[in-house]
């Protein structure tokens, strides 16, 4: 069996386990929502929320990542399945890729919820200049007639380009977070006290994603006068980070879990 096929099997298995246990829908999504509500309470000034909303989205994503990674590896260690995979000679790169893919899918769901939570909870600050609603500013053709669902577009900020920037930011940041989370999740799974070790290892390692994704989303939604063109360099950083952590993780995962 090729590494890729085994990775797909592992990803499908992880997603099936989550569908059965409903941990993501019943616990992680509510946690992410509550985190956003808590930020809104703590920073109860509209001008502050306007400025920090993109950062809050990625902070909440990072916190949710920690829970998702813990969960992803607890299903492997509950009955010794990770050990069984290593004993069975399952390619460690396939384990890494499969678990990272499943984690990325779950993270994307969380991020989409967080974006909508930011629109709902932080309201006008994002809507006023943003690409989150730019989708609705883009005319769609219904019966040969162009229909504008949202308000007017944001002038110099091209809504379509802003949406593309937002989507590429989500995808590249998600890949980086999933790769780093899987790598450190595998490492921490073999240690006593993995619940506390995981945040210690993961949070510093994902700092580049937190910074880059926040800056890119600020550019996409036009926070504090940021323009879309400024966002691409951050997407580049996120993409490089995702590729580097993906390759590095795939190579390091086997020795790490064997130890």
């Amino acid at each position: 069996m090729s590494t890729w096929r085994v990775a797909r099997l592992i990803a499908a298995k992880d997603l099936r386990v989550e569908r059965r246990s409903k941990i993501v829908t019943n616990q992680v999504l509510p946690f992410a929502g509550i985190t956003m509500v808590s930020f809104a309470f703590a920073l109860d000034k509209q001008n502050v929320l306007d400025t920090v909303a993109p950062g809050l989205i990625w902070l909440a994503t990072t916190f949710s990542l920690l829970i998702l990674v813990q969960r992803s590896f607890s299903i492997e260690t509950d009955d010794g399945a990770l050990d069984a995979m290593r004993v069975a000679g399952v390619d460690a790169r396939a384990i890494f890729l499969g678990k990272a893919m499943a984690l990325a899918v779950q993270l994307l769901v969380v991020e989409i919820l967080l974006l909508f939570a930011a629109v709902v909870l932080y309201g006008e600050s994002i809507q006023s200049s943003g690409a989150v609603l730019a989708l609705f500013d883009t005319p769609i053709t219904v019966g040969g007639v162009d229909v504008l669902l949202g308000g007017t577009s944001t002038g110099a900020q091209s809504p379509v380009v802003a949406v593309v920037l937002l989507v590429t930011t989500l995808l590249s940041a998600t890949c980086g977070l999933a790769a780093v989370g899987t790598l450190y999740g595998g490492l921490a799974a073999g240690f006593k006290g993995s619940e506390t070790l995981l945040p210690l290892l993961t949070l510093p390692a994902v700092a580049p994603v937190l910074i880059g994704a926040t800056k890119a989303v600020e550019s996409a939604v036009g926070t504090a006068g940021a323009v879309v063109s400024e966002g691409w360099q951050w997407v580049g950083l996120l993409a490089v980070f995702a590729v580097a952590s993906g390759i590095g993780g795939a190579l390091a995962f086997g020795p790490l879990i064997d130890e």
Partner: protein
Amino acid sequence: MMSPAPSPSPSSATVEGPVIALDDVVAVLGQFPALAGASLTVERGEIVLLRGPNGAGKTTLLRLCAGLLPVERGTATILGFDLSTQRELVRPHVGLLGHQNGLYLDLSVRENVNFWGRTVGASTDEIHAAMVRMGVAERLADIPCRKLSAGQKRRTSLACLVARRAQVWLLDEPHAGLDAAGRDELDATLAQAAASGATILVASHELERAGNLATRSVEVVAGQITALEGEK
């Protein structure tokens, strides 16, 4: 001229000669020589009981045979693969069942066996046959493993070993945690597996029960296999 290394394909693992051949093997855990010159030969279809006190080296011997520990000295081959140089190739053909079963508890029996079988490219028929052979194909098939008894989990785990085509089964205290009925079930399952060609090493303190099951017993003391009983 060097002989070509065996390929990792399952067919190449069906070699002639002993399935397990250890000669004066030394294996070290940290600084401690957990195996100190162990020698053992096991033929296909045998069930060999490893007896001995705690810390004697039984689990280390099983882990070495699973390709999880390096051979420091001596020669060791499993299914013709040299454990000194081909440990990664040994692993797909070997199943190690310890105190845990290696199951995904939220998935059903069928999904677990299917997953493990698919990792080696097993067909749907092959996977179903593995479930039938271990008696988990009907009533238990769609039950989440979390809801199974300890004995049923063991049987499911063994079905996973069959589905992923493990030819050498290394069992560490397989009767632990099972009630009388579960132990009887497990013994019947192992006897049937050996009759079908699986080679089984069992480390157990349940001498009477495991002794009745085994085709022969060996004693592991201080990292050496010091006494053999019933050698053919």
